[in-house]
């Protein structure tokens, strides 16, 4: 039985209310931190826990916090990134919807550690109804004395504000998020300076994902060392995975990092296997921007060792034969899936969401989408496939923010692993013409 830290009480009726949450041991972390620990001690616990950013990049959270400029006289800010817009990722939504207080509690503790007196939750525009849930939770916490002036007599003041985005994927990028929060156009900023030095309103700022901040609560409750014992290697603790696609049991699961992927995919506790009568074809392991992998390469790495659900194991083999854990948006596809259609859909998304600030992403995402559209609808040429690889390589790494990479990786990976399917679309253009069905029946192994 896996450890449940974030989802422990998720099915308790009324857990979204303060009273029930409190009766299940809620806000203990706040009491512990504010009454018995100094802000630096809280940070030390987080460092010890080995917690890594759950938003996608997997950067160690304790280290990120330690970069915050504490010497300047400017106010410091903590911003919670709830702009969860990656296709395939819906873990934060589930957590905020069902158990908003764990996020509020995590925010209080983290704000205390970072010295932020105004903390913002930037939530995506499409999650409009969750704003109400969060605001209700904030009001309840304030009522109970966990927010406001001089919390628990510690002398620490904190207000949490919820800010609604307007439906732009790019505002999930931390500097674009800050621009948007300031009321400007959500264009990513040129770095340096990094937000830890000059972020929101040019003040030192830490931006963390919802799940990361919520995880601070169990870390304080159980202690950083204890948390670090969960998981495997540098992938410590538990992670929420939102699973969807052609699996029997789609949903949000909390796993111990290091769980074998085979178990995650096939055990009835989690995904419950691919739907009956079908077999696994491909997997997008961590949200739409990570490279797609053929089923075989996902289950076992190039050396034939079984893969584990961890940051390291999934990225084994680099991009040639590996992928990334990313934000935990797990999409499984069976053999009926047309990879070209799938890639086109993703390319269309990134084209639509590019902010248009820097040239490679603005022009390149649109170009890729058009070429993929051509291939998908039977107007493609053989040289288009290489052209796509070329465009992707020209975007990757040359843009201001990671959206360019996120747009380029899925296209490059799809061609790397499923080139024959793209070629089929060119050779049999009359048969394919925009059909979503896979055109290589009994498609099994991809050549590496």
């Amino acid at each position, binding site marked *: 039985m896996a450890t449940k830290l974030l989802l422990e009480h998720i099915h308790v009726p009324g857990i979204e209310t303060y009273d029930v949450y409190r009766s299940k041991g809620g806000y203990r972390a706040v009491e512990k931190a504010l009454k018995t620990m100094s802000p630096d001690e809280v940070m030390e616990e987080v460092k010890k826990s080995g917690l890594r950013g759950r938003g996608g990049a997997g950067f160690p959270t304790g280290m990120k916090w330690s970069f915050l400029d504490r010497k300047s006289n400017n106010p410091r800010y903590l911003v919670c990134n709830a702009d969860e817009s990656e296709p395939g990722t819906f873990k934060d939504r589930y957590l905020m919807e069902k158990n908003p207080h764990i996020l509020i509690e995590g925010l209080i503790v983290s704000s205390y550690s970072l010295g932020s007196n105004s903390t913002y939750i930037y939530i995506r525009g499409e999650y409009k109804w969750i704003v109400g849930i969060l605001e209700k939770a904030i009001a309840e916490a304030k009522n109970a004395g966990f927010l406001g002036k001089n919390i628990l007599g510690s002398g620490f003041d904190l207000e949490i504000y919820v800010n609604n985005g307007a439906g*732009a994927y*790019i505002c999930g990028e931390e500097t674009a998020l800050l621009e948007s929060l300031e009321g400007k*156009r959500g264009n990513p900023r*040129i770095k*340096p300076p990094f937000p830890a030095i000059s972020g929101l309103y040019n003040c030192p700022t830490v931006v963390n994902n919802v799940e990361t901040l919520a995880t601070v609560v169990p870390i304080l409750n159980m202690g950083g060392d204890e948390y670090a014992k969960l998981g495997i290697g540098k992938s410590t603790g538990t992670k929420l995975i939102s699973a969807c696609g052609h699996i029997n049991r789609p949903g949000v699961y909390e796993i111990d990092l290091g769980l074998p992927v085979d178990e995650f995919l096939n055990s009835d506790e989690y995904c419950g296997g691919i739907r009956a009568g079908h077999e696994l074809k491909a997997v997008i392991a961590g949200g739409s921007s990570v490279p797609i992998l053929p089923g075989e390469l996902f289950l076992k790495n190039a050396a034939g060792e079984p893969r584990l659900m961890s940051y390291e194991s999934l990225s084994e083999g680099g991009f040639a034969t590996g992928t990334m854990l990313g934000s935990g948006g797990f999409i499984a596809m069976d053999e009926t899936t047309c990879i070209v259609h799938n890639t086109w859909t993703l390319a269309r998304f990134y*084209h*639509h*969401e*590019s*902010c*248009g*600030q*820097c*040239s*490679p992403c*603005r*022009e*390149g*995402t*649109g*170009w890729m989408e*058009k070429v993929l559209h*051509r291939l998908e609808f039977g107007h493609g040429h053989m040289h288009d496939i290489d*052209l796509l690889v070329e465009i992707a*390589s*020209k*975007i990757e*790494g*040359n*843009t*201001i923010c990671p959206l360019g990479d996120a747009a380029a990786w899925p296209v490059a990976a799809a061609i790397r692993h499923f080139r024959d399917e793209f070629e089929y679309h060119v050779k049999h253009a009359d048969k394919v013409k925009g059909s979503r069905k896979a055109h290589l029946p009994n498609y099994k192994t991809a050549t590496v």
Partner: protein
Amino acid sequence: MSQLFKITIDGETTEVEAGTTILNAARQIGGSLVPPAMCYYSKLKGSGGKCRTCLVEVSKGSEKDPRPMPKLVASCSTPIMDGMEVKNLTSPKVLEARKGVVEFLLINHPLDCPICDQAGECHLQDLSYEHGAARSRYEEARRTFDRIDIGDKIQLHMTRCILCYRCIYVADQITDKRVHGIMFRGDRAEISTYIENVIDNDFSGNVIDVCPVGALTDKTFRFKSRVWFVKPMEAHRDCKKCAGKATVWLSDSEVFRVTGRKDKYGEVEDWICNDCRFENKKITDWVIDGPRAIERHSVISLNKYQKGIKVEAPKNLGYGNTR
């Protein structure tokens, strides 16, 4: 007072003040190792980082931390570190990336140079001569925009725009009030005024000078002449609004247009006001100081000025007033 940092670019070493960007350090060395810049403009605060033409490879981070930087960096917005080593033209990765950027900039560009007033002094032309391919691989229809009228002095051709944001910074930093901005997102993003405003104030004409392409051109010069047929002359006049130092572009004794005095990186030395730019189109309005040297490798200079064809100030014509 300030510290001097050592920096090596393409094998040339120099010392520059701490806090200088790689691009500006390169400009201090000068020559062909200076990365091209389409969006950075030294006189506009906050500009740069967007077009990605100035990407360079940092092969050594600094004396203290000699690790190379993992990605190519935008030289216009990356400050130097002591002992940094940068590769521009000597890095195949940079040249490849730059080729990519030029291709991206051109796929939706109308390539209407034959009828574009900017032709001959267009940075995108220069850039594609140097780094572009002879043929485009783009097979789709090019992007178009609805035309909007932004006033009787400035012509906006949105299809030619590369979204460098320079004109936005000019409006923010030089003029009183900005009425135009970027609307929409991604490759549908466009320079526009909200509800068809007119861009009109004393210094709005400077957006024409900063525009690297033909997206913003001078309506009073529109289709009058190719720029290489008119001669740039340094001239000045007494102006209450600006320094009055400009370049007037002459054909015989007729003033075809007035622009700011641009240096070899295409940046103006002084901003000029709209009176100087649009209203003083008689030769008698100006005191001619002499021919304007053009050092850039652009079309205008290739044929004439650099190769030693002398251009002298017109004599004995009684030009200029001595007010």
